[in-house]
């Protein structure tokens, strides 16, 4: 079983950190293998940004995503560019605050950035909100509790609470999501 996730959007949305957190939740606190990669580049100057996490029960040879099982797109540009890499039965999860054109009717649209602003007052926690949603959709791979462990390892104690809140709101939004 190999599961490939790509987190994409624009520079400054904290997607690389999100990838690291996801990989840590899965790989350190979740008992599976996880490998995380990312794309660098002049894109980092305000353009596209992406992080990938490959999850498996066995050793992972090839560390890059090839056919995505889940694509998180937090910008229209990212959605347009990367949708093509998604498997037929893959999950397309978009931040409907930024993404307005959907390549497929199966798109799961959650306004992560709006939720972030509402629950934490900080748009930049949208990445954590999205991670919450991923915990819901991939609950066989990563649990809310291991994600919380990953978060508390990386994030200063002072900011833990709002991040946990963001995470939970994302989880709930996914749970309550209706196409």
């Amino acid at each position, binding site marked *: 079983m190999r599961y490939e996730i790509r987190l994409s959007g624009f520079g400054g949305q904290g997607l690389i950190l999100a990838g690291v957190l996801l990989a840590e939740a899965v790989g350190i606190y979740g008992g599976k*293998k996880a*490998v995380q990669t990312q794309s660098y580049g002049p894109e980092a100057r305000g353009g596209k940004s992406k992080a990938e996490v490959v999850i498996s029960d066995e050793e*992972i*040879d090839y*560390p890059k995503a*090839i056919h995505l099982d889940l694509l998180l797109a937090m910008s229209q540009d990212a959605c347009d560019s990367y949708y093509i890499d998604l498997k037929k039965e893959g999950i397309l999860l978009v931040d409907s605050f930024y993404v307005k054109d959907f390549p497929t009717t199966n798109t799961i649209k959650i306004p992560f950035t709006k939720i972030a602003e509402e629950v934490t007052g900080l748009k930049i926690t949208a990445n954590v909100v999205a991670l919450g949603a991923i915990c819901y959709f991939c609950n066989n791979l990563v649990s809310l509790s291991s994600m919380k462990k990953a978060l508390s390892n*990386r994030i200063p104690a002072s900011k833990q609470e709002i991040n946990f809140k963001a995470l939970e709101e994302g989880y709930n939004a996914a749970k309550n999501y209706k196409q």
Partner: protein
Amino acid sequence: MAAKTIKNQEEAKPVLIQGNQAIAEGAIAAGCRFFAGYPITPATEIAEAMATELPKIGGTFIQMEDEIASMGAITGASLAGVKSMTATSGPGFSLKQEAIGFACMAEVPTVVVNVMRAGPSTGIATAPSQSDVMQARWGTHGDHPIIVLAVANVEECFRYTITAFNFSEKYRTPVIILSDEIVSHTREVFTIPNKSEYTVFNRVKPKMPPEWYKPYEDNSSGVPPMSPFGEGYRYHVTGLTHDAYGFPTSKPNEVISFNERIFRKINRAKQNIQIVKEYMMDDADISIIVYGSITRSAISAARMAREIGIKVGVLQLVTLFPFPGKEVIEVLRKSKFTFVPEMNFGQIAGEVDRVNKNYTTLKKVNRYDGNVITPTEILNAIRRS
């Protein structure tokens, strides 16, 4: 995300760690206490990790004015007795060549990491490649051997950085570690081994009284003991061809014996230096010879091939130079076809070709568009054959 995951080496807790950070950790584990570097993508995180970690343990980090200065500084620090490393990518590696040659000539242990990115020239700074392999062997002027290791994942970054330091100390030579953008930027869960799980070799110091010490005297290993500056063995170090005392010479017999010794010290230890790993080779009739990040694709490809009934094995070259010709020939001999996938136009394939005296049919699988070779590409190449 640089320093966060670097943990004190006492606790054996798994961490999600990048190849670059694992190289830094490996260096520290090997006893490296001096790092001089100059930022360059995709190697910068090694410097950043060293800047954070070294002062904590009494070591020194310095960002120099350029890559040449960095190479000079680590050579100086090593002469003063401190294990030293620098890290760079293609453009910086090109600049360092003269100073690397000096360290070979003066036999100063140093470790130089080149995290390969797509070239030529500035190329694509953020894309992986394996196109500095032949440069690692032949980039300097003058004829001398060098040790080049290639790493494939986080665990190897840690492990073979220690090996690189050990070789450098044991054979008094710079050792080149070739990583690439994939290996260096991929994060994997890794538990930093306990000190008891690896060995660290420290250079042999002279034991004789200073008056008897000849810093470049031959002996059975070809590696003279090395005294750090300041410990009573005052001697001369130069990039000029030198005699046993380190003094410049152009006497043919002294020149010959110096030049032959620096080849001999590496050649006689080949057995020890040439690290290769075999995967599924036992019953294979098709082989893949590979190194660095593409090893991962090769192993995947071999697994996939076996699923469809093709017996493919993999020979991973960890040591690229001195080229493990014997081990390669062994594999060539038992292969109907041998594939050499590389992110370049076929540099190691050329070395394999040299030793392939009609043993097998060699096939190159090359990619040079800034993207990694996927398992499927290798598999397809195999299926086509």
